[in-house]
Each structure stands twice: as structure tokens, then as C-alpha cells.
């Protein structure tokens, strides 16, 4: 809309940045929640009741790998506020199994059981269907560059939580 900026449009541009920024903040929250809702809906369709949406996404992201809980936290995938709780629940319901590391007794690895893999496959099929449904739309084409913009924003925010003296100073 505002590709060609003129000096007169400066004020409008400022407002537009303001709007885009706040909109992005709200949108990321909505997207996150909406996607969790999609997954919840899928689990309901599959008749899976002993696994919630956040847990199933942890499961999906573990995939064929083995992780410690620390690594899962560091990867930051859909963990909600309580990684250990979610992992314990999935172990209890037979989706994950835990094993102490032979090298470090304090370190526990988790991996999917056959039951966990079955859910992984269902979720993977869901993603495939969604990717196919999106393939025809312009969303798919533009998503990569949209990701790029969001990644720049993410890096900016990461700096803000680390150090940025010029950004953290308060007036008063």
C-alpha cells in the first residue's frame, strides 16, 4: 500500500508502522491459540482423549529423536509452562518412554513409544492435508518471506531481553 513513500506521507508511514507492529503482536498470539485449537479439534476427531494439544505437539516435535527434558525446553516447542508435567503425563499414558542416560545418571532421555509414533503419523498426515489445502493459495507462496519478516522480529525481541542499553533506558 505504501510502497512509494513521499515526504508528505511520512506521518502516515509512522502510523502504519505503529499499526503493523501492534497488529503483529496480537496476530502472533491469535495464531498460536488458533493453531492449538486446530490440533485440539484433530485430536477430538481422532477420538484421542488422553493427550492434549500441547502434549501432542511436543510429541510431534520429538519425532524419531531422543531428547532430555532440558533439550526439549531449549527447543521451546509448544511446551507451555510445565515441561516435566507434560512429559510425565505422556509417559503415564504410554506415548513416551524415558530412559536414564548411561553416561549421566541424572539425565533422562525421552522417546516415542509405538503408541506415540501412531499419533505422530496422524499428526503428520494432518500437516500434509493442510499443506495440500494451502498449496493452491497465494498463502503458500508468500509464507516463506512472511516467515523471514517474523524471524527478523524475533531476533529483535531476543536482543531486547538480552541487552540493548539504548532501548531499555527509562525517562525518569
Amino acid at each position: 500500500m505504501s510502497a512509494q513513500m513521499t515526504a508528505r506521507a511520512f506521518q502516515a508511514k509512522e502510523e502504519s508502522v505503529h499499526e503493523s507492529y501492534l497488529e503483529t503482536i496480537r496476530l502472533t498470539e491469535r495464531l498460536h491459540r488458533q493453531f492449538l485449537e486446530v490440533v485440539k479439534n484433530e485430536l477430538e476427531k481422532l477420538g484421542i482423549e488422553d493427550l492434549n494439544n500441547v502434549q501432542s505437539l511436543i510429541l510431534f516435535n520429538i519425532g524419531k529423536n531422543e531428547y532430555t527434558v532440558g533439550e526439549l525446553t531449549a527447543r521451546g516447542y509448544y511446551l507451555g509452562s510445565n515441561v516435566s508435567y507434560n512429559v510425565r503425563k505422556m509417559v503415564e499414558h504410554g506415548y513416551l518412554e524415558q530412559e536414564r542416560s548411561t553416561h549421566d545418571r541424572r539425565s533422562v532421555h525421552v522417546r516415542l513409544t509405538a503408541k506415540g509414533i501412531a499419533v505422530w503419523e496422524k499428526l503428520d498426515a494432518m500437516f500434509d492435508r493442510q499443506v495440500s489445502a494451502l498449496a493452491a493459495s497465494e498463502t503458500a507462496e508468500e509464507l516463506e518471506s512472511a516467515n523471514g519478516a517474523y524471524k527478523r522480529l524475533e531476533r529483535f525481541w531476543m536482543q531486547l531481553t538480552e541487552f540493548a542499553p539504548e532501548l531499555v533506558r527509562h525517562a525518569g
Partner: protein
Amino acid sequence: MNRTPLRPAAPRPRSGSAEPLRPVPASARHSPAKGTYLEAIHLAERLHRQFLEVVQAELNRAGIGDVNNVQALILFNIREDELTVGELTNRGYYLGSNVSYNLRKMAEHGYLVQERSPHDRRSVRVRLSDKGLALCRLLDAMFERQLDAVSGMQLGAELKSASNVFRLLERFWISQIGYSRAAPRD
């Protein structure tokens, strides 16, 4: 984050040779389109949480310990308005999982004033106290600084077109579940 160590796994029955797990395809084998799609999903989650971290860092720097990031954003979204809990929920911004709890905490710490409606005794309206409004101004100043930086990085236009795409993605997800909600719950 929770660092409670996990309980050790129950010893697995060793029935002869340990049965190998069925292999799961690696995410590296996703098609480019699927990789991009999954990345978008991760980004939405990471950005959402990273922004909450940014707000928490701001509160920490200001030495504010009696309100958390989610609560601060609820205050920021109420601003000058006077709302019922229902109206606030419909706005759907940063409410976390427990609106009533957050509102009660903020009222306890003097950021919010709760008042029963004179017309409907069951309906409670909330508005910001002076302390709450002061916190809003702190967040306003934070946003101003961030907006300067975003303008300086020439990121505004990029975010605008990115958000157009992500809004389509949002609509796609809404269509996937067949009905829309202003503020889906997790």
C-alpha cells in the same frame, strides 16, 4: 521453567532382544512447502512467547514485581476503558488461561478497580487505577522505543505484508475447525 527432575523410568521388560522402535521420518525429509508451513507454526509460538519475555524484561528493569507480563498486557488492553470480564474476554488479548485470577491479583495489588454494576449486581466492571494507568504509560514508552527501532530497521513494511499472509493462515485455521472464536482457549 520447571526444572524438576523426572522420576526414573520403570525398568522395561527385556524380552530377548530389545525391540527397535519403528522409525519416524525425520523432519529434514519434509517437502519445502511443509517445512515452511511448520516453520510458520513454530514462529507464531516462539514470537508469542518471546514478546511476553520482552514485556517481562521491561517489568524487571522497572523493578515491578507485583504484576506479571500477561497481567501487564491485560492492563494495557483495558487502558481507559471500563469493561466487564465478559467484554474483556471477547477482546481476547493476552488473557492467559485464567482471567478471573489475573483480575483478582491485579485488584489486590492496586492496579485495577472492580465495581459491581448498579444495574446488574452480577456484572462486575473493571477499570484501571492510577497505579494501573502509570504502568500503561511505562508500556507506552516501551512501545515507542521499540517502534523507533522497528522503523530504523525498515521492518514496518515487511511486517505489514507478513501479517497479511499470516492473517490468511489464521483464516485457514479457522476454516479448518469450521467455526470461529474470537479468543480460542488452549
